[in-house]
Structures are given as C-alpha cells and as structure tokens.
C-alpha cells in the first residue's frame, strides 16, 4: 500500500437486493492516473462514488468491504465521513460550480475548514486557480459569477475548488464528456500536470482518452473487475479476451 494512495478491498455496493459492484479489490498509487473503463451500467461510476462514500446519500445503498487511505479503513461506520471527504476531491461529469463568484467558489471550502485570514485565502485561491490552469483567464474577474464562465472553464474551476481543500486523491467521473474538444484537451493536459502531486482515479467512456492520460486501466464489466494493468499493456496485449473484445470495439 502506497503512502498517499487508496486501496479498495472486497468492495461491494448493493442497491436494495441488486449487487452493483461485486467484491472489487484495487490499489491506486499516488502520482498515478488510473482509468476505469467499461460499458454503461458496469458499476464503474458506482465504484468511484463509493470511494468517498458519496453513495451514503442514496437511500437503500449499502457498501461492504474496506477502503484504505493513510492506514485508515474509511468504510468503517465510526469514521467521520465529513472530514474524510476533505482528503478526496471529486469532479463531476457536468461542471457544477456553486452559484457564487469565482473567488467564493474556491474560498468556500478552506474558509469552512478554519482559514479566516484574507491574505491566506487569497493565496489559496490564486494557487488553486494556477494549478487548474485558470488563473490567467480569471484573475481580473475573480468576483464575477462563476456561472459566467464557459463550460470548460467551469470544469477547471471545479477542479481548482477541489484542490483548495488539499486532498491527496481526486476522483473524476467523466470530467470531459460534456465538453468540446478544445476544453477536453485542456482538461487532459491538466490531469497530466496534476498527476505529479495527486492520486487520480478517472471514469471515462472515451477509450482514446483512457489510453492518452492514464498509467493504469481497470476494465469493469457487469459489476466485476475483469482486469487491471498498465494502460500500455491493456491496450496492446490484455490478458483477458473480454478486455480485448471491449477495447477493440467488439461489444459495449
């Protein structure tokens, strides 16, 4: 187990009686991008959302198994899920900036976690926006509504927002699927950049994207993990025939 990564052990998610994710064990290393691929309904998004216990919010969802972060099993009922979520950033398919100014979108999290000093907050806002490659475009309009930004900018703002509370892991649920090609390219560049500091887990429907940006690829099918290996190997010489069939477009 790596220092700032994440490990799932025998993780299962049930919606009522239906098992959406079946006994998945996976390790995600720090400073690596892992892509989760598979056909719709294969459980990859459910799996991703269970990693920061976002599925707790859905009535009737039940998670069993262990999720280890920094030597702590966070799927333990005694773990304070509120604090835990700070360590795990999340980015959604559709950009979802708060209905606030650009500045407030970023400062909102850190301020809640106790940083009241204006200078310090200004610093966090700037460094988060810089990391998300959005500073140059927004530095003159920090106090305008975030909703005035383009879709691609909004998505980078959402990434900046999650960086502001200093997570070590970032979960991304198809972060570029609602964006145009230029914005998508920017997000992909950004992911390559962020990889230096964070453990990134990304769900994607776009096979080329998975091949371009990830170090490891995990293939899900019908709630099960078929295989997980180096992206290079997965896309050229996978060990399972099912993976080969999916990647070469024979189904899914």
């Amino acid at each position, binding site marked *: 187990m790596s220092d700032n990564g994440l490990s799932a052990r025998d993780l299962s998610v049930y919606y009522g009686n239906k098992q959406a994710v079946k006994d998945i064990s996976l390790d995600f290393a720090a400073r690596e991008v892992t892509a989760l691929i598979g056909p719709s309904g294969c459980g990859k998004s459910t799996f991703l959302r269970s990693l920061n216990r976002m599925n707790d919010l859905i009535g009737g969802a039940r998670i069993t198994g262990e999720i280890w972060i920094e030597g702590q099993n966070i799927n333990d009922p005694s773990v304070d899920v509120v604090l835990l*979520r700070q360590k795990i950033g999340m980015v959604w398919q559709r950009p979802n900036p*708060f209905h606030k100014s650009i500045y407030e979108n970023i400062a909102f999290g850190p301020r809640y976690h106790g940083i009241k000093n204006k200078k310090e907050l200004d610093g966090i806002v700037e460094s988060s926006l810089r990391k998300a490659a959005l500073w140059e475009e927004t530095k003159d309009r920090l106090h305008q509504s975030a909703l005035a930004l383009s879709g691609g900018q909004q998505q980078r703002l959402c990434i900046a927002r*999650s960086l502001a509370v200093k997570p070590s892991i970032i979960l991304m649920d198809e972060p570029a699927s609602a964006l145009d090609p230029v914005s998508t390219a920017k997000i992909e560049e950004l992911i390559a950049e962020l990889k230096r500091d964070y453990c990134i887990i990304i769900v994607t429907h776009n096979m080329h994207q998975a091949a371009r940006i990830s170090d490891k690829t995990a293939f899900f099918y019908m709630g099960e993990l078929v295989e997980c290996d180096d992206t290079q190997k997965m896309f050229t010489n996978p060990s399972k025939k099912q993976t080969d069939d999916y990647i070469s477009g024979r189904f899914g």
Partner: protein
Amino acid sequence: MSAKLANRIATVVIIAMALFIVAILVGLLGYILIRGLGHVSFDFLTSVPQTIRAGGGIGPQLFNSLFLLVLTLLITVPLGVGAGIYMSEYAKANRFTDFIRLVVEVLSSFPSIVVGLFGLLVLVQFFGLGYSLFAGALALTVFNLPLMVRITEQAIRSVPKEQKEASLALGLSRWKTITSIMLPIAMPNILTGTILASGRVFGEAAALLFTAGMSSPRLDFTNWNPFSPNSPLNPFRPAETLAVHIWKINSEGLAPDAAEIAAGASAVLVIVVLLFNFTARFIGGYIHRKFTASK
C-alpha cells in the same frame, strides 16, 4: 370521422375552454374593480369605518389584515422552513415520513370554517386568548404552515444534486451544505411560494370570524407600545380584517353606503392579492436573472 377532423374539433374545443376560463377571470375582475374602484380614495383607505352614517373608510381593517399577515408569517415561516428542510433532507423514506406528509396534506385542505370553530373553542375560550390577532394568526397557521412545508420541501428538492454533492465532497457538514449552498439556490422558490401563500392568508375570512373577531378597538395610530390595549401593534387585541369587514357590512351593515363600501373594500382586497402575485413573479424572475445573469 377522419383523424384530421377530430384534431380540428379537439383544438377548437380546447381553445374554447381556455377562453372560457379567461372570460370568467376578466369578467370577475372587471366587475369587482369597476364597481369598487370609484369608491377607493386615499381617505377611504385611511379613515375609520362608520356604523350608521355614510362615508366610512377601511383604514384599521387594512392595517389589521397586513399586521395579521405579518404575525402569521412570523409563526409559519420558521416552522415551515424548518419542517420542509427536515422532510427533504433528513427524513428517511419510510411509513412515518409518509404519514407526516399525509397529515400535512390533510391539514392544508381543512375547511376554513371548521378551523375557525376549532380556534374559537380551543384558542379563544380554552386557552383564554379571547378574540385577538394572536388567536387569528394561530388559526391561519393551520392553513399556511402546510403550504410553507410543501413549498420549502419542493424548493430544496429541486436544487441540483450535484450542488449538494460538490459541497459535501469538500468536507462540509450536512447542515453547512444546506444553509450555505442549498438554501440560497432554493430561496427564490421559497420566497415566491411564500408570497403566493400570503394571498390566501390575506383573503381568508371564515377562519377569522371567531378568532380574530369582528370588531376593532379604537386604534390610536400614534401609540406604538405593543402592550397598550388601543395600540395597533398589540397582538392580543381583537382585529377585524378586510375580508371579515366585507362579509360583515354585506350581511349586517347599517350605513347607507354599505354596498359601496363593500365594493370598494373588495376591490382593495383583490388588488392587494394581485400585487402579491405580481411581486412574487417579479422577485422570482429578478433573483433567477441575478443568479444566471451573465450567462
């Protein structure tokens, strides 16, 4: 009959129904306003009513209606918003929650005269509140509270799920997420819903006959001490509202111009309720534009 002909006929029938409804509304409004507006003047709106002489106004009644509305909202907004938040965010989907929802529905569809009698027996007599603004406000709470709960619940439910998740993912507590992220987004809907619900409170008469009473003490509009018996602000004094006043002078008015006063008061009542509606639309639209302004 060909499909085309059937389609024609259906279209004509549906348009006729829509026009019929519009005609009823225009006719009703026109009748009330044309009959009443001629009688409305600044003097009419501010002077006190006369019992047997002509020339009385509706000043105290208008004030009572507005003050009663404020009192009612003071009670129902905190309770209703709180319960609405509970129903949308905290309550688990089980039989108990369904039961609460059913009770809320039933409460809001109670016949108002029954609520009035309940108010008379329980609030006015048993709890000894007497005919008072406070008893009236509590009676109106019976209608208004369920509406507020439903308005808040629906407004909060309509906040995009991703907004809530984004806040939780930053490590914010549920409560902070509700107050800082969800309530501001839900606010326009809560506000417009509240104003629309106010219209019903403002026009209610039956529930107030036996609770807020059918008379007003001689109000001294220079005395703003809420504990003084003839102060307009005293919540424990009897208070005849505009709607009750219309009912009263129509049924037992002795003044020679009772019919004109009733017509004028009706026009004022309708105008105020219309104002509530337009304000609600305007504020809702304004806040919506402000949120999505530069988009």
